[in-house]
């Protein structure tokens, strides 16, 4: 793939620009929560940024893997995108949702990675010594290895099985939240129960799924 004419600069100057929505729309609960975490991170609370990384790590890795068409670099590029986002966090004003801003950085970082890959000699890997090949192999992201693919498949299967085994009220609450993206208030209306009950049901569903996942991840 050839770099496009209006290729973003590699210094990241374009990556911190926030896209502005044509018309302001009310921020969702997650967006407001993200914004609060960003504000805390801007004030020096590193834990707040760590939570944002935890929240968006899979989305960013998935996005970058699709853009690169070669998932061997996906985690490295995603990591670079998060580091860039952290360093540019002071410039985030909240005009757009945090994830929009983060995805923009991820897309530009992936483009830069593709351009730098094009500049590499074609026989680059063929010329590597055994030690260098080993170093490259160790740098391969975990999600690219056959073991990781199997693990990913197992995670998907385990989660879906755990949800299927949940009591109906917990299953409905977690599906409405995670798949349909409804707010607690909307779920409460749909299930005809108080918001506090929704919160508790979703929590208990997650705990049940976590109990199934733990043996797999540990």
């Amino acid at each position: 793939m050839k770099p496009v004419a209006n290729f973003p600069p590699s210094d990241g100057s374009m990556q911190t620009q926030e896209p502005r929505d044509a018309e302001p729309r009310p921020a969702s609960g997650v967006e407001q929560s993200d914004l609060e975490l960003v504000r805390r991170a801007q004030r020096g609370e590193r834990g707040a940024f760590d939570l944002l990384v935890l929240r968006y790590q899979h989305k960013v890795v998935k996005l970058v893997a699709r853009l690169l068409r070669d998932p061997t670099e996906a985690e490295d590029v995603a990591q670079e995108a998060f580091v860039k986002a952290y360093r540019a966090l002071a410039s985030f004003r909240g005009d757009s949702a945090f994830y929009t801003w983060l995805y923009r950085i991820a897309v530009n970082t992936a483009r830069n990675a593709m351009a730098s890959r094009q500049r590499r000699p074609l026989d680059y890997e063929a010329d590597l010594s055994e030690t260098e090949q080993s170093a490259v192999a160790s740098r391969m992201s975990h999600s690219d290895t056959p073991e990781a693919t199997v693990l990913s498949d197992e995670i998907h299967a385990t989660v879906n099985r755990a949800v299927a085994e949940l009591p109906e009220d917990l299953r409905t609450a977690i599906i409405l939240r995670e798949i349909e993206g409804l707010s607690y208030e909307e779920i409460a209306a749909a299930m005809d129960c108080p918001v506090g009950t929704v919160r508790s049901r979703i929590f208990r569903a997650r705990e049940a799924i976590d109990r199934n996942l733990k043996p797999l991840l540990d």
Partner: protein
Amino acid sequence: MTDRIREQMSALLDGELPRDEMGLLVRRLERDEHLRRAFGNYVLAGEALRSPSGPLASAGFAARVSAAIDAGTVDATPVPVAQPERARWVRPTLATAVAASAAVVAVLLVKPAVQETAVVAGGAVQQAQRAFALASLPIVAESSPTPAHSQRLAGYLMAHSQFAGAIGRRNVWSSVLASDPGITRVSYEFAETP
């Protein structure tokens, strides 16, 4: 106690945690690795539910990002503290005021020195002008001939040339020309005329 915190964590993930409960929870999560892992698992479960397949970030991904940030912040620009809304205009205004004050103080301090320098420089200029004027004046030495002197000298040379030999005459002419340029032209004309 732990269940209450984990339930708060679940609500935070959904953007449903009240703002006043967030600070304490974020600080707890920063300290407690087990809680962070549980938060990561909640995220993972949601991701797995939404997409039936596809790559997922590996278990240590978030920790690696954190380590990379820590490694980078040693020599990279740290995240500056965000200024409150008020500071957006207060800060530049203050900076301008300080800069203006500094400029005024600098002008007040520098002005007397400039004046002194100007006086000194002015004196020097006057002296230089005076010296230049003196140098420009025509030097009138007491020995310089007036027209009357020149006429007398020319008469003397005429008389001398009538009685002196050629060599002696040339020597006298040479010495006269060398000693008094004021009569050069007159003397030369006189010399050619006869």
